[in-house]
């Protein structure tokens, strides 16, 4: 255990004292600040415009009325399927979506929550600039760059060190391969999470200042907003879990590529897959391979959003189980692969 702690702290020290890490962090920060500044300018430009010209509002229905509406749609859908007029594909999540909407409406109705505040039922204005849009964009930038940073770090710290021979020097020390791999894995995860969380918190504060203290709306976006309206703390918790699960997935996959290929493969394969992930996933998903959704929708948040579950009827527990199995399998492959690998 002492060996693992020492190796972990050394790896963290190595990453956090790398100049490239901080240069990358500063670049993301500057980029986000530029976006924030331009966003604020746009916001000011739109403020003077006519409300009707810049966006719509919610449809004014109560939660109970909306629930009734979705129930009717669900019945209609089921009737179409039963009559054979509509073919139900494995990837069709209409029923799940409608069931989720009904459940949300009933929950809001029972707890006196205004459904108009929920993202699903709220404004869909095409020109309206809001703190939600800002937060979405910020999160996309932070998450996108953090992902790239995670891939680069994991490829460098594992496959890169095997490639340049420095891993050889480390392995001539009294330390097990599995311990060294765990330390490197943990250090990359910690560095990526730290960077992501620090940047997110930084822009929560900036966003709150720019958008009149609407900090909750600034950070809790898209999939999380619905949960946030009900329980903001749960939303933050889910956001962190989602971030952690995704970061872990990326680190594992990059190490996996490094085990099978060299340093270039460890960098190139995850980057290409990440950049074209949506295209590849959409192609496979539309080709009637529903289980692909297990991998493209690994984040638990997917199960919480309407139409988010990759397979009809899939619950958060089954998502959790799939995630656990996936992580365990990937971890086993990485450790066994590294134990058997000959170094230069």
């Amino acid at each position, binding site marked *: 255990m002492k060996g693992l702690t020492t190796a972990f702290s*050394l790896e963290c020290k*190595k990453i956090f004292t790398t100049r490239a890490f901080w240069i990358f962090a500063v670049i993301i920060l500057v980029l986000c600040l530029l976006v924030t500044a331009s966003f604020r300018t746009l916001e000011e430009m739109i403020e003077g415009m006519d409300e009707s010209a810049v966006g719509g509002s919610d449809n004014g229905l109560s939660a109970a009325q909306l629930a009734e509406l979705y129930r009717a749609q669900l019945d209609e859908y089921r009737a179409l399927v039963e009559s054979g007029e509509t073919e139900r594909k494995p990837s069709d999540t209409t029923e799940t979506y409608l069931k989720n909407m009904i459940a949300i409406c009933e929950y809001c109705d029972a707890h006196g929550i205004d459904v108009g505040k929920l993202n699903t039922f709220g404004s869909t204005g095409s020109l309206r600039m809001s703190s939600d849009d800002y937060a979405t964009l910020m999160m996309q930038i932070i998450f996108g760059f953090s992902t790239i940073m995670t891939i680069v770090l994991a490829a460098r710290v594992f496959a890169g060190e095997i490639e340049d021979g420095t891993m*050889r020097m480390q392995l*001539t*020390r*009294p*330390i097990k391969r599995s311990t060294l791999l765990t330390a490197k894995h943990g250090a990359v995860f910690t560095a990526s999470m730290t960077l992501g969380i620090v940047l997110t918190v930084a822009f929560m504060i900036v966003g709150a200042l720019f958008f009149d203290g609407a900090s909750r709306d600034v950070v809790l976006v898209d999939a999380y907003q619905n949960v946030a309206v009900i329980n903001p703390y749960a939303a933050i918790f889910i956001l962190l879990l989602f971030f952690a699960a995704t970061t872990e997935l990326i680190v594992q996959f990059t190490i996996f590529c490094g085990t099978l290929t060299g340093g270039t493969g460890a960098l190139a394969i995850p980057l290409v897959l990440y950049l074209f992930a949506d295209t590849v996933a959409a192609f496979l998903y539309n080709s009637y391979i529903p289980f692909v959704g297990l991998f493209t929708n690994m984040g638990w948040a997917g199960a919480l959003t309407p139409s988010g579950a990759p397979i009809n009827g899939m619950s958060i527990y089954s998502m959790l189980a799939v995630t656990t199995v996936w992580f365990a399998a990937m971890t086993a492959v990485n450790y066994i692969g590294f134990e*058997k690998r000959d170094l230069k």
Partner: protein
Amino acid sequence: MQDFSEKVPAVVAESPGAEATPFLAVNGVRKVFRKGFLRFFGKGEGITALDDVSLTVNKGEIFGLLGPNGAGKSTLIKVVTGIVVPDKGSVSLNGTDLKTDKVGFMSQVGAQIETPVFFNKRSGWWNLCYLADLQGGLPQQRLRDIVELVGLTDRINTRVGTYSMGMRQRLGLAQAIMHKPSLLILDEPINGLDPDGIAQIRDLILRLRNEYGTTVLFSSHILGEMQVLCDRVAFIAGGRVVAVKTREEIERGLGDVAVLCVVCDEPNRAAALVTEKFGYRTKVQGTALYVEVKGGNTAGINRMLIENGISVVSFNVKTRTLEDMYKELTR
């Protein structure tokens, strides 16, 4: 690099004296380097780097590995340090098995494998501290002593990327001996060193063995170094240990055997006479007769040829060198 006789470093193994007890044991090690995905399952075509290699190194011994390029010396050293995983066979040090207790095994070992590789963008000192921490932590004073010992004091705070090959070798040696290893493994430790550096490394190895009882396993292409330094030498060729000889055996073999080249008018009759009277191996090429002489009786051969009426034009004796022995054994 400082003169090692001036300052006694408190930085090397303290167990004095050499004993003839097996310390490092390599048993039936086989390694095939395979390509493709199937390599993870030990399947597929590959190159056999080590084929049933077994040897023992005694405590306090300097043991050399000698062989041509691609013979398997570096692979064997990598197997012993756990860098390369053998397909079969075992390696143990003082009873500790490498596979089952890598931490216990490697805590007794200091190794420098091929050209040492460090984090180039960091200083030599950073690299040394990093490796010392991975080792479990060493006092700063000991690291400073080691840096002084290998003669890197002036450059230790500059980036390793700016180091010459010789300086990298010195830093590699520093990280190998900093934790007082019982077994020091050096793979081509004098590559890139100037003549002074080579002499200093040689002195250091001898001193580690003579004063602190450190066992040394090292490989080199420089035959002279092997002859001067090693108590025993393993000759490796084609992934196999073809011979293991002590220094005495090597010296005896070199001193006793000479190749005699006699140019005469009747080389075939001369060859028959030499074989008949002395029992030596002969070979005739044109007018030259080559005789492998054992025991140094070259004058007797000359006298016998003249007495039998053979006209000797020239008579040259070439003493067998380690290079000849190396070529014979590794051919």
